[in-house]
């Protein structure tokens, strides 16, 4: 957390953001961007966030693709529901999912994935019980949802963050 580059990953991301913002790859832009990116790392360090280690970039890439696909599919599913196409008798409801994931970045990623996917939303996390409550727009089978979430998302996230 100390040293001149406390959060290399973040700094790299910041540099990328900077370059996208200035839309230039000139030396000046890169230099300035690098300075700002490092400064950004220090700014985050001032907030003393818990440390993060990210491993298994392959798993991460696979997860990203998987999520993108899921999001696209869910989009269409929800669109159908809104437009009242397809079958009737849809039921919405809450599902409580016990989690093993404890890393806060991992949890944050999971929350983002669940919430960003149309049809599901992260509602409540109970740190003592280690369970998350999600709301599902089209709830057919609670068990199936628990399984899906744990296998599709939680496991790879645990591989990445823990």
């Amino acid at each position, binding site marked *: 957390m100390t040293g001149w580059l406390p959060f290399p990953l*973040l700094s790299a991301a*910041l540099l990328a*953001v*900077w370059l996208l*913002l*200035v839309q230039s790859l*000139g*030396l*000046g832009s890169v*230099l300035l961007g690098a300075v*700002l*990116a490092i*400064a*950004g*790392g220090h*700014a*985050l360090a*001032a*907030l*003393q*966030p818990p440390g993060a280690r990210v491993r298994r970039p392959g798993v991460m890439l696979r997860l990203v693709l998987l999520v993108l696909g899921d999001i696209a599919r869910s989009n269409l599913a929800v669109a159908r529901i809104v437009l009242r196409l397809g079958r009737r008798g849809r039921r919405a409801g809450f599902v409580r999912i016990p989690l093993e994931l404890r890393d*806060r*970045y991992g*949890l*944050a990623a999971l*929350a*983002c994935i669940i919430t960003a996917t149309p049809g599901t939303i*992260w509602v*409540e*996390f*109970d*740190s*003592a*019980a280690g369970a998350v409550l999600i709301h599902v727009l089209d709830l057919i089978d609670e068990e199936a949802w628990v399984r899906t979430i744990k296998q599709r998302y939680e496991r790879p996230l645990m591989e990445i963050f823990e």
Partner: protein
Amino acid sequence: MPDDMLLIAAIALLFTGALVAGLLPANARNAEAWLAGVIALIGLGLMLSFWPAVAHGGVVRHEIAWLPTLGLNLVLRLDGFAWMFAVLVTGIGFLVVLYARYYMSPDDPVPRFFAFFLAFMGSMLGLVLSGNLIQLVFFWELTSLFSFLLIGYWHHTAAARDGARMALTITTLGGLCLLAGVLVLGHIVGSYDLDIVLASGDRIRADPLYLPALILVLLGALTKSAQFPFQFWLPNAMAAPTPVSAYLHSATLVKAGVFLLARLWPVLAGTDAWFWIVGTTGLITLLLGAYVAIFQNDLKGLLAYSTISHLGLITLLLGLNSRLATVAAIFHMLNHAIFKASLFMAAGAIDHETGTRDIRRLSGLRQSMPITAALAVVAAAAMAGVPLVNGFLSKEMFFAESLTAPAPLPPFEGMLPVAATLAGVFSVAYSLRFICGVFLGPAPVGLPRQPHEPPRLMRFPVELLVLACLAVGIFPAITVGPLLAAAAAAVLGAATPAYSLAVWHGFTLPLLMSTVALAGGVVLYLLLRRHLGGEAEGAPLLRRFEGRRLFERAMVLLSWRIASSLHGLMGTFRLQPQLRLVVLAALAAAFWPVYRQGWPAAWPDLAGLDPVIVVLWAVGGATAIAAAWQAKYHRFTALILVGGAGLATCVTFVWFSAPDLALTQLLVETVTAILILLGLRWLPKRVKGAEPAGAAAGMRRLGDLAIAVAAGSGLALLAYAAMSRPAPDAISRYFLERAYTEGGGTNVVNVILVDFRGFDTLGEITVLGVVALTVFALLRRFRPPPESLDRPEQQRIQGAYDAARPDRAVGDTAADAMLVPATLMRLLFPVIGLFAIFLLLRGHDQPGGGFAAGLTMSIAVILQYMAGGTRWAEARLRVRPLRWLGAGLLLAAGTGGAALLFGRPFLTSYFSYLHLPGIGAVPLASALLFDLGVFLLVVGATALMLVALAHQSIRSHQAPRRADPGAAKVGEG
């Protein structure tokens, strides 16, 4: 022939003397008296030295430029009439000083007394010497002021306070009327110079404004001279120390009124209006004063009403429109001054030696105070008009005039001599009462002090004056003849009539009237003797019309009750009517030119409507109206709805080519929303309840609705009219042409902000900084409503839940709820910061700039406060908003000020390119530095406000009466 400079010297001497007297130590009684006496004596000497110059109709004039462009110069003008008064003022002034040395007690703060006295004398001298009407008013008001201070000298007594206040109120009211009258006279004549005015009598009397001018001037004169119906202030002025009364009543203050009447007699008199107003007032006052005087139990009260009566006599004489009567008036002014001064001093001596002035308690003082008794008898004889004393002469002239005066209306024919005789009867009666009640009868018992003669020097002034009474009374022609001639000629000029100053004119009707008056007076006194001395105060029939009480009641009514209700009627202390008026005034202001010039726009063209904008503003308008609807009970909802209107505004800015505006508006909306939310925490919920539901409230709401609709339509019409006109040839073209070449930026809006009109921006950030300081200062003293002191309901419930669960600690619910959001918000901190820097750096060329960047940065900071709470954030971020604020302002101003070092105007910008190898041209612009200042200030100010507001929570959650170092830290770091 003395130098006319000496006139100003005399006045200056008196005022300087006043200043010196005021600076002497409190116990310097002798030094004060010496000073005042010598100064008064020098003044008298100076005046006397002018006698040769004025004796034969000469006028001494001394002019000093003061306000020449407005016709107001210091003009000192001494003629025979003024000389007579000047000598009275200084001469009697000297005697009064002498008298006062012995009269005043060692406990009295004498510096104040002599200072006011000398200043009053100076004002009076200035008044009689005035050769300019405005200057006359100037000194006139000064006499009111210093007489007020003298009357109120013993202000620990209620009588002194009330008397002084009454005198001031009445005389300044008169003085203000006089000012108005003099202004009108000046308007008629075209000058305020007395010589020019005196030469314009015909013009003045012929002017349509004559009557108003006359009435105004008379209001001044008659109030000052205590004429009916303004007579009541004078008796109450008795609360003054007796030397003051002697002075004010004899030679000075009250004489100023009749002095003015005589002074302006040549230009104002000679009309029916004059006759009726002045004559009637004088007559009533003459009779009333004399009648009431008989029944006074206070020596000074008796003398005061006698003064009123004698002034009424003078006024009546002046009002008769007769030259001879005017001569008599002038003569009586002189006589009255002499005998009244001596009488007052005698009364003062009695008071001083016996400790009381109550005629009922006094008796037989001829034994213990024989000399004083003799002096008083002579002076009282003059007052009563007994032959061989001066009062007789002028009184007989009055009786003669009463017989010959014109009577415009038949019913009053012959009434004047009767009235004059009756007044004579009264004056004899009260003079008798004065003498008999005090000096005759058995020796007094139970007086506060054992009476004996006053000190020699205290008696001396009285003796001198009584001697004068006798001298004038017996040898009028040689003693007072030349003086009266000079004075009368100064007033009447060439038209001075012939008159005879002799004690004996043969058996004439006036002599008969005098005899009747003397006899009648004696009879009346004997008749009334048994009734006088009862417990009842005041004169029969008039007891209920006690002037003082009436005055007080009128003042309370006029200056308090009526004023208050009128003030309430004309104004309001409520906000809503005020805002209503502002809106209505603006509506009227905008409507009026349009009404005069015609409707400035064509009918709308419906083609070319962009449906997106239509929908957008259907949304914006609906949310705005809904916000207005909800703001009373659903504050939170209203805030959300306002956000909708704000978004529509943002999109509109983008649509119509104003990306900078949209950016700033959006950021400001966000920060404002957070601010108000922080504030909502301290606004207890409104519950729908007993609200005004009556018809009046309904009408008011309907009225407000109408105003709102009118204001909205008005602004919409104006906007439409202006927008549908072709654009004028605006100065902005200059900016577009030069922004890049001379301002060094392509974002013209930003170049305007930091360069062309950088001064506006500097001012604008100053406003922001100032407001932040104010907010901070206010919150330092913030006392939340008791209903809000507790934690919010949500927190209490969630905390209780956590507490009840063994596996959780209080606050876990919040921590769990914020777990993911806080993680993300923290990650966003550097990202948003980076974005802020980006906005700052590119602002000169692309949308952005210091302000948007600053707001963005402060959002990044406040997000951390939201994520972790105040304590958490402040343990990690050392935000020092005040430093940022001050540094930003200093940087922006300093950047502008740097130009001064190069001899260029403030805020002159500088830019060039620095060529770095491998990187290329790096722009270097002072504008960026300026923008950096803006950025720093905005971060500082916004953070200061947000954080100071956020701090209230932790402040109130702590023990509410303990010092909170955290709050102080916001300011300092």
